[in-house]
Each structure stands twice: as structure tokens, then as C-alpha cells.
């Protein structure tokens, strides 16, 4: 069965501190992994996906198949990073996303 686990419900960090949002998954095969972000009063939007290997707004995430993890990292947190972050996976192809429970990131000035 597909499952995404985000162990932290809330993560508070000081501005300028490093951030790591944890995500582990359960899937038999090669899933596609994503991070979505929801800022206050805005709709859910894609932050990054593992196949792109890109850095968006300073965030990166590396897929570790051995540990079945896809942790989201940023070296220096900014106040505008405060939001709800969801890790998600899907089977290859046009299949719907399965979401983790989300982590609320709060960056303190």
C-alpha cells in the first residue's frame, strides 16, 4: 500500500537557521515524489518534484530509495517560508497523489 509519513506536525525554527522537513514513504516500486506548499489563505501549489532535481525558493529534496525518504531542506529559513508543507507520492502515470499529514513550518524572526 502507498503511504506517506511526515512525523512532525509542527516545526519552529529561527530565521536564518537550517530547516529539514522529514518525509518517509512506503511503496513497492518506483514512485514519483513531490513536495507541495500551502501558504496562508492560498491554494495548494507544487514546490518541487524529485524527478526535476531542482531547487525552488532555496529548497531542495533528495530521494533516498534505501531509506525510502524524501526530506525537504533549506540552509537558511526565511519568514516567508512559514506555511504548511505536504509530502506526496504517486505511481508513475496519470494517477492521483497520496499525501502525508503535513508539517506546519513556523519561522520565527
Amino acid at each position, binding site marked *: 500500500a502507498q503511504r506517506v509519513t511526515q512525523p512532525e506536525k509542527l516545526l519552529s525554527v529561527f530565521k536564518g537557521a537550517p530547516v529539514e522537513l522529514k518525509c518517509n514513504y512506503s511503496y513497492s516500486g518506483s514512485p514519483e515524489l513531490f513536495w507541495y506548499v500551502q501558504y496562508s489563505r492560498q491554494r495548494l501549489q507544487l514546490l518541487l518534484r524529485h524527478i526535476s532535481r531542482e531547487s525552488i525558493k532555496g529548497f531542495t529534496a533528495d530521494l533516498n530509495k534505501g531509506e525510502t525518504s524524501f526530506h525537504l531542506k533549506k540552509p537558511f529559513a526565511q519568514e516567508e517560508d512559514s506555511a504548511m508543507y*505536504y509530502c506526496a507520492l504517486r505511481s508513475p502515470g496519470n494517477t492521483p497523489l497520496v499525501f502525508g499529514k503535513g508539517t506546519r513550518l513556523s519561522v520565527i524572526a
Partner: protein
Amino acid sequence: SAVISQKPSRDICQRGTSLTIQCQVDSQVTMMFWYRQQPGQSLTLIATANQGSEATYESGFVIDKFPISRPNLTFSTLTVSNMSPEDSSIYLCSVSRTREQFFGPGTRLTVL
């Protein structure tokens, strides 16, 4: 990208009534998805709606409670039937395009 609109944006309903939520996409898509986000919870997939066929429901969701229509490639509706307070949630429409999944703004439903 895909621009998705939903109506209504929010509603307060009485127990036992039904509400139909509309989802409009700015261009044609094969598959549309409906999710529910209960207070403090993550997004849970309700069903997948393909044009011209019956919707496919996830475990725990049934057609009698959440009937879905998909009359064309840009539009879908989700009805929440015989509502109870436990149905109070945000309902989101979503589409998949170019390997990315896009989401509507959501419909915030409160059942009294």
C-alpha cells in the same frame, strides 16, 4: 499549468441537506480528482472522475453519499448528500497535467 475554479467557495448547510460543488478547468483534462481535507487533517482522495465513465471511488467513499458528474472535459461536480456535521471539510478539485497535479481553491463546507 491549469487554472481551476470552484463554486461555492464556502457554505454553511443544515444537517440532512445536500450540496453540489462545481469545478471548472480552463482547458480540457482527462482525469479530475476530488479530495477532502477535514479540519487539521491531510488531503484524502474521494474519487477519480473520467469523462464518459463512472467515477472511481476510494475505500470509505460511496457513490450514494458523494455522487459525481463529469459531463465534459472541463467540468465536474461533486455532491455531498444527506450531510452531517462529520462532513464539515474543505473539498478540493484537482487535475493532472504535464506530470504535475494542480488544485482548485477549495470549497469550505460547514454542516450544522
